[in-house]
């Protein structure tokens, strides 16, 4: 069974401080991992995926298979980063099921 764990419900940081949102996963195969974000009063949307190896809005995430982690990082937090962040794992079977973590609320304060 696949499982995603986000240990922090709330992460509060000051503007300009580094951010790291933790995500650990459990999956027997080769995982595909994503970060989704939901800003206030907006829809859930894709932030980034590990296979793209891209930086979106200054965020990056590296898949560490040894530690089964996919932490989301940003060197300098901005107020507009305040949102709910969900880590998600997609299986690689015939049905591309997404399994979400419980989410972490990031609060960036001045």
């Amino acid at each position, binding site marked *: 069974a696949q499982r*995603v764990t986000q240990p922090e*419900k709330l992460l509060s940081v000051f503007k300009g401080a580094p951010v790291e949102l933790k995500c650990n996963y459990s999956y027997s195969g080769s995982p*595909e991992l994503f970060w989704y974000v939901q800003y206030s009063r907006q*829809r*859930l*949307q*894709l932030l980034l*995926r590990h*296979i793209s190896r891209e930086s979106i809005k200054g965020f990056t995430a590296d898949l560490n298979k040894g530690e089964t982690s996919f932490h989301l990082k940003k060197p300098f937090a901005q107020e507009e980063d305040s949102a709910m962040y*969900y880590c*998600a794992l*997609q299986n*690689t*079977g*015939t*049905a*591309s*099921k*997404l*399994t*979400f*973590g*419980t*989410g972490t609320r990031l609060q960036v304060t001045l």
Partner: protein
Amino acid sequence: EAEVAQSPRYKITEKSQAVAFWCDPISGHATLYWYRQILGQGPELLVQFQDESVVDDSQLPKDRFSAERLKGVDSTLKIQPAELGDSAMYLCASSLVGAGGHNEQFFGPGTRLTVL
């Protein structure tokens, strides 16, 4: 920009009543998903359609929940009878291709259900 549409946005009902939610995916998206999100948790997949066929409904409580996508376009999720524990946000999402593929899922605004 094309978006996933859902209605109603809010629904309040009494337990044992029937409720139905509607979803219109982005045009051309073959795969449609229904998720349930209980307060404080992440979305949980209830059912996944590839065109008009169900490819995963392993987490759908089939004694009271049903879902259909008759023409492979829009979809309806029904609960009958509703129970107090069904209070949640019901999210619909769609993607271009689902089976075995790697495609971004686009989410609708959700329907917030409250069962009294």
